[in-house]
């Protein structure tokens, strides 16, 4: 019986119950059910909106920088004065003064322009940093870099991890042994230490092997490093699910019909772990953004002067007392983004399979 989508409830049990008196039961795909369940999770929806808002804000960084703030992310304005609420205010002022006659220094506090909150025609909305750069512009560009690395590394990591998990789970035997030991090998290192070691080493000379040329300072370095160190964190749970799926009747039936292993992998197994992969992908973006922030904070991620939320926090920590906005702004951005992605990821997991316990474990 054909049925309009508006008549459906979002719960499978309810759906079945409402149709019990009918002759036939309409099968719904897990994706369809998830699509129906998700809008009922207001928390997940709200956080999705927050994340999309952050993405949109960051994506308009060049427009904001050019037409509103009239500066670039690395432009230094330490010498300039800005009219804030009609009053000319120096971007950086104060500091000790040397008296050549007495050969002494008069110690004075250094002042950095604080947030102008749109009272300076869009300039220095979130204040200036210790070199007189516009924090708001750097925050947006930093967000672009952080999101590029977070999402890019999540994509690469998930792709590689799923491929390896599919190979291991489908073929078993020595292929599974090799893949599992590979996961174990990476798993054996503390994520951060391994990432710092690789990031620092590659940032010095770049990567110039196997026909691949990555220059020092390239965003590809933190992206690939993070992808690599997190492979087992996605690969292991997916492999476990595939191993269990392999024993199911529909897979045995496909094998019995003589289906090609690749067909079994991509037509039978992959669609059945897709929801897990999607949830893991969402969660790992958040995880990767934190990892990138940590690496950049330690100087092994995005290279200065290019901004990222992590290196902005690192640069601002010396001024935490006199200019707290330098660390607060990127800190809040990281918290909001990661929180949004985590809550949305949980919501997505609940929508796709309420019984699932998929989570990212360290």
């Amino acid at each position, binding site marked *: 019986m054909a049925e309009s989508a508006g008549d459906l409830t979002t719960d499978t049990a309810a759906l079945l119950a409402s149709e019990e008196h009918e002759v036939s039961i309409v099968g719904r795909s897990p994706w369809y059910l998830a699509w129906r369940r998700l809008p009922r999770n207001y928390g997940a929806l709200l956080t999705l909106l927050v994340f999309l808002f952050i993405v949109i804000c960051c994506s308009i960084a060049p427009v904001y920088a050019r037409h509103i703030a009239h500066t670039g992310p*690395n*432009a*230094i304005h*330490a*010498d300039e004065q800005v009219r804030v609420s009609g009053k000319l205010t120096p971007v*950086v002022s*104060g*500091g*000790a*003064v*040397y008296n050549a006659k007495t*050969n*002494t*220094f008069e*110690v*004075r*506090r*250094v002042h950095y322009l604080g947030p102008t909150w749109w009272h300076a025609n869009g300039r220095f909305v979130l204040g200036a940093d*210790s*070199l*007189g750069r516009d924090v708001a512009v750097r925050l947006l560009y930093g967000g672009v870099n952080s999101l590029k690395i977070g999402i890019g590394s999540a994509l690469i990591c998930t792709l590689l991890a799923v491929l390896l998990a599919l190979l291991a789970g489908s073929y078993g035997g020595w292929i599974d042994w090799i893949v599992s030991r590979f996961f174990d090998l990476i798993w054996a290192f503390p994520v951060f230490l391994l990432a710092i070691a690789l990031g*620092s080493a590659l*940032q*010095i000379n770049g990567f110039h092997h196997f026909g691949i040329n990555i220059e*020092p*300072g390239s965003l590809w370095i933190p992206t690939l490093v993070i992808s690599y160190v997190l492979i087992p964190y996605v690969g292991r749970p997916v492999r476990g699910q595939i191993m269990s799926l392999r024993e199911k009747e529909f897979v045995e039936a496909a094998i019995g019909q003589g289906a090609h292993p690749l067909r079994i992998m991509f037509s039978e197994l992959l669609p059945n772990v897709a929801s897990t992969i999607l949830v893991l992908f969402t969660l790992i973006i958040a995880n990767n953004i934190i990892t990138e922030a940590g690496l950049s904070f330690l*100087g092994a991620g995005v*290279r*200065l*002067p290019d901004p990222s939320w992590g290196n902005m926090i690192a*640069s601002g920590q*010396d*001024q*935490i*007392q*006199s*200019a707290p906005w330098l660390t607060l702004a990127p800190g809040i951005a990281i918290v909001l983004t990661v929180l949004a992605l985590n809550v949305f990821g949980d919501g997505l997991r609940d929508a796709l399979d309420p019984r699932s316990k998929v989570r990212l474990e360290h």
Partner: protein
Amino acid sequence: MTGKHRWNGLVAALAAAMAISLVAAVYGAAGTQLGKEPQSANSTLKIRAVIDTIDFLDPQQAYTGQAWWAMWNVYETLVTYKHVEGAAGYQVVPGLAASMPKISNHGKVYKFKLRKGLKYSNGQPVKASDFKWAIKLGFLATGQGVGFYTDIAGAKAYSEHPTASGNIPGIITSNGKRTITIKLVKPRGDFLTILALIFAAPVPGGTGPDIQNGSIPATGPYRFSSYDPNHGFVMVRNKYFKPTKYIPRGKPDEVDVSLVGDANAATQQVINGQADYSNGAIPPDRIADAKSKGRLILRQTANTYYFWMNTTVAPFNKLKVRQAVNYAIDRKRMQTLVWGGLGQATQNVLPPTYPSYRKLTLFSHNVTKAKSLISQAGASGAKVTVWTRNVSDAVSAAQYYTSVLNSIGLDASLNILPRTTYYTTIGNRATHAQTGWARWLEDYPHPLDWFDVLLNGNRITDTDNNNYAWYTNKTTNKEIEALKAAPVLTKAVNDKWAAVEKQIMQKAPWASWSNRVFPEFFNNSVPKKCIHIQRLYGIDLARLCK
């Protein structure tokens, strides 16, 4: 009890109470005094210092300012520096030697005689041969200071195959006569200052080449009683030390030095009274705050911060590009941006504390002129990598520098290296590093420590090179070599050094930008009169008090 009796009792009780109070007060006062006397006789003056890090507490191995600051009062050298403030602190005076050496053969032979009755802190006598062993030990342990002693006759050959039984024929010692004769292959005007380096501090013969953190017996006013690389070390008096005219007996009985990497935490410890002194680099943000909560002393040391430009690599192989960079940098502004104004803008190689210093003003800040020079040199859009090390002030300075290079038409990007590998990387010819951040802190107060090490083309090496600009100029090299032999820094010699400096800076291999001052922070319990700054080594521990 009747009323009269009651009054009598009350009066008696009051009288007794007064008597007891009086006795107690008198006894208390006496007790305080009595208690004070023995405390004074036995009191120990303990200074608690906080520093960020040291490399080693081994005279032949250590090469950091903090380690030298501590060891200066532990390991004496044949000649040393006066424990005084100001320019007099640069004066070389007898240390373990009974007097200044006799110098003969046109500055190639130095004859010393050790003071009588010298003993290490373990009671063992100090022998003349221990000096020879110290120099040999430097080579055996491949210490960082061995390069200073290769002009001693036979030292170069010894350095190629150093063995414990090997000999440096240029050092002749007699334990019986307590004499040490040092022969050089060529005269060196800075040799006395080189002998005053802690690398040359005598250590007991047979001391092994492994790093001996604090375990080598002392010859100075203090000895190390404990050392924990993660926490710090303790210095106590050396009971065998005999003060001299130039080396005083130390005032503190004990100096506890803690290692705290975080300058904010170190500053806070001093403010809280958990420590008396910190030499951690207080962030610019906290300088004014620290000044109001403790005793802040700004110490002017001999240092120069500069950007080097590799004169052998494009675009810096063109003089106009190097000049353009010098015109473009706003040195005054940089002092505020990098360290909150605690530095003097400079265009010199030498710091202003040197008698050879003559202020240079070759390049006034002029961005338009800089752009024009870049354009004339045909270097517009040239790709440039700026190198720096991962330390906050170096990163800030290099970010500013990168922005300046971009503003004058170059296409600059930044390459930040870990601090441990930075200098070896840029000092390797194969790196072809174009330009970057560097600083030089004096090893000893002589222009040779600057020009010979940093800008003498004859001393360029393919690896571990200190001449990061790879600057060489036949005339300059020749003049530096000639000035090496000048035994005393007379006014005429100082003028010649100043001329060499001007000659070099006109070729602009560097863009020098700062002579930094370092904050030394004390708790208010340390009176100003107790703080003495030795120009070379910093806060004089031996003269600290509370």
